[in-house]
Structures are given as C-alpha cells and as structure tokens.
C-alpha cells in the first residue's frame, strides 16, 4: 500500500509513491536520488540528515515522507547557486570545517537555520546550537570557526 506524496524539493515540484512508513530521508535518498542527506544513527541524534522543511531545520530521519506533503523542502543539493557556493559552504571550505564530509550536509543545513534565527551568534551560541549535530573528525574547532565565518559573510 503506497501513498502519493507531492512536494517541492530545492525549488522543483516532485512526487513519489511511498509507503506510509517511508521516512523523508528515505524518499530523498532512494526515490529522488538526493544522497547528500545522510543517515548516521537510528535514534535521531546525529543530525547528518538535517534538511529544511518550510524554512526550518528538521531531522529528515524523524519525519514521515507523507508528512511532508505540500511542503517546501531544501536539501544540501539546493544550497549553492549553480556553481557558486553559498557563503556558508565557502566558509566550511576555507576554514577546513570538514574532514570525511559525512556530517557536513547536516552541519551546513543546521548552521543556516542558526544564522536565520541569530545572524551574529557567539562561539557559545554556535556550540549550543550544534547539540543535534555530531561530528567525529574535526573536534568541532573548525566547524565552529566555519559557522562564525559563514555568518559573518552572510551579514555582508
């Protein structure tokens, strides 16, 4: 038994027939081929799957695909402007804010939501905001630096 789900992903109208138990992240990865959104845990804690739904960061592993019916979803694939990296992506690159890259999409999507809510976050506020995003490679030092730099660039 499947349900048809229609939504907008990175500005494009898409639809797929999925089982009710299909998670949004599964639909993105398996049905739409958007494999930039990752799955790093099964208890909704690692944040590798963070995407934006109607402008807010959510864990795509903790939302049923059917719940996203009609929603406007943005994934890491939709952040850059063509070949031009978004300032936050550029900041992660310049500040070596990633190593293996697995947590990076979730980190960037989460960081963008932080900056939306708090355009000039302090180091402490960045660290606290990242409670739902785990990284095993960087010791967080350069992620924090990247988000600080990205926020600054976005302030212009």
């Amino acid at each position: 038994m499947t349900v048809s789900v229609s939504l907008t992903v990175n500005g494009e109208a898409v639809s797929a027939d999925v089982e009710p138990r299909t998670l949004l992240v599964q639909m993105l990865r398996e049905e739409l081929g958007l494999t930039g959104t990752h799955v790093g845990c099964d208890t909704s804690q690692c944040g590798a799957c963070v995407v934006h739904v109607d402008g807010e960061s959510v864990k795509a592993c903790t939302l049923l695909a059917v719940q996203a019916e009609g929603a406007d979803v943005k994934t890491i694939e939709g952040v850059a402007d063509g070949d031009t990296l978004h300032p936050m992506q550029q900041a992660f690159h310049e500040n070596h804010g990633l190593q293996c890259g697995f947590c990076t999409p979730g980190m960037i999507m989460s960081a963008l939501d932080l900056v939306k809510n708090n355009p000039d976050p302090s180091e402490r506020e960045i660290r606290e905001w990242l409670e739902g995003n785990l990284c095993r490679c960087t010791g967080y030092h350069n992620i924090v630096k990247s988000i600080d730099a990205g926020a600054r660039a976005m302030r212009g």
Partner: protein
Amino acid sequence: MYNFEYKKAGSVDEAAGIVGADDEAKLLAGGMTYIPTLKQRLAAPTTVVDLNGVGGMDGISADGNGVTVGAMARHAAVAASAEVAAAIPALADLASHIGDPQVRNRGTIGGSIANNDPAADYPAALVGLGATVQTNKRTIAADDFFTGLFETALGQDEIVTAVSFPRAGKAAYMKFPNPASRYAIVGVFVAQAADGVRVAVTGAGPCVFRVAEMEAALAANWSADSVAGLGISADGLNEDIHASAEYRAHLVTVMAKRAVAKAG
C-alpha cells in the same frame, strides 16, 4: 519500521474517533519520540493518526490570567514567543532548552506531556506552575495529569488540545542533563505559582513530583539558602549508568537551589 495506515486528521474529533475505535491506532504530534520508537520496531500501530493537519491547535496566547499554549505549538515557538517571555519567562527558557534545535522545531507540548517521559522537561513546568491541561473532553489539573512512568490521565480517545499556565511570580527551571541523551537527569522547576510556591522535579523519579518540604521552606523564605539544606530521599529514584539514585537525590537539592537563585 512496521507498516501502518496513515491518516491525516482534519479535526480533533476525527482523530479522536479513529483512536477511539481502534486501540492499536496511535496519535502522531511532533513525532520526536514516536518516530524513533517506530524506527526501532518498538511499536506496531495499525494506524498512525497525524494531528499536524488539524488547524488552530498551535496558537499561543496570553491574557491577565496567564498563557495558553496550543497542544501542537512547537517548542521553538514557545521559546520564541513574546507573549510567553513577557508573562512567564521561565517557561520560554525551559522550552528553549528542550532537546536540540531540530527537535524544538518539530516537537510539541501536547506530544511531550501525553508521552510523559520521566526525563522530559515540560512536566516540570506544568506541575511547577500549576497548569491546567485542556483536552477534547475536559480540563485536568497538572497535578492529576501525570500519573506514572509514561502514564497520564488521558483516555484512549482523549486528546490534549491546549495547556493553560497561570501567571507566576518568580520562577525558574534548572536542568542537569544526561551527558549522552541530554534529557534531564534532574530538572527542577521552582515558582511562586498562582496557588503558592511550587517545586516540581523531573528526571529523578519515574514521574514528575513535587517536594513539599522545599515548597514550605521557600514559601517562608524565598532564597536559595532555604532549600540548600533540604534533601530528598533516594528511595525509588531512577538509577542508570549516568546517575545513581543518591546522585539524583543530591542533584535535586543543587538544581532547586540554583533554580531559586536564577529566579532571583
């Protein structure tokens, strides 16, 4: 995840009708606990009834008496609400520290209290402020709502629609988080509540509870020193690899003291 039928309810009555007719149908609010439960195949509902399509359930309003928070209001909305911040700042502060930002963007007050996780934050606010839970059938005082470990006074076809918090004098919440899950190992909400001083503790026991001795001491003298010497018994408190019962009992005193200090 086991498969299930998905129904997006258009109204509270429709949702209540479905879960009333089928014991194995379950309500879905924010899903921050329930979807992980489903993922791990720890639940096998016949039908998942999604409340996210029910209009008008996520409002937040304030009047002279207090604040009313719709059951589907997200934690982030409560944390960011100017009305809540003006009327009961301690409630906004508590909401701003539930889970992580993504949990706060989805999780709801109705879902949280209906689940009644022993380590959840909201039960401390409800009991600490003497709130009232509104359902599709009745109103329930917070003191009567939380009945045990993952147990509430809600009936099978009863759905939380809103929570009303009366205005309070000084109030604050202090949480000592579990280092791994970041749920409360101990969370203490202290308030000069509408009906007197309240001290509500979450995380420490199987269910939120009040500490009468601390309430009396604070009623007599609202200061951190009043509770610094008051302890609770470790008997019956939760134990796990992160905290012994004795440690939890100790933290209740420390967090109570710090909450009073924070409240000013």
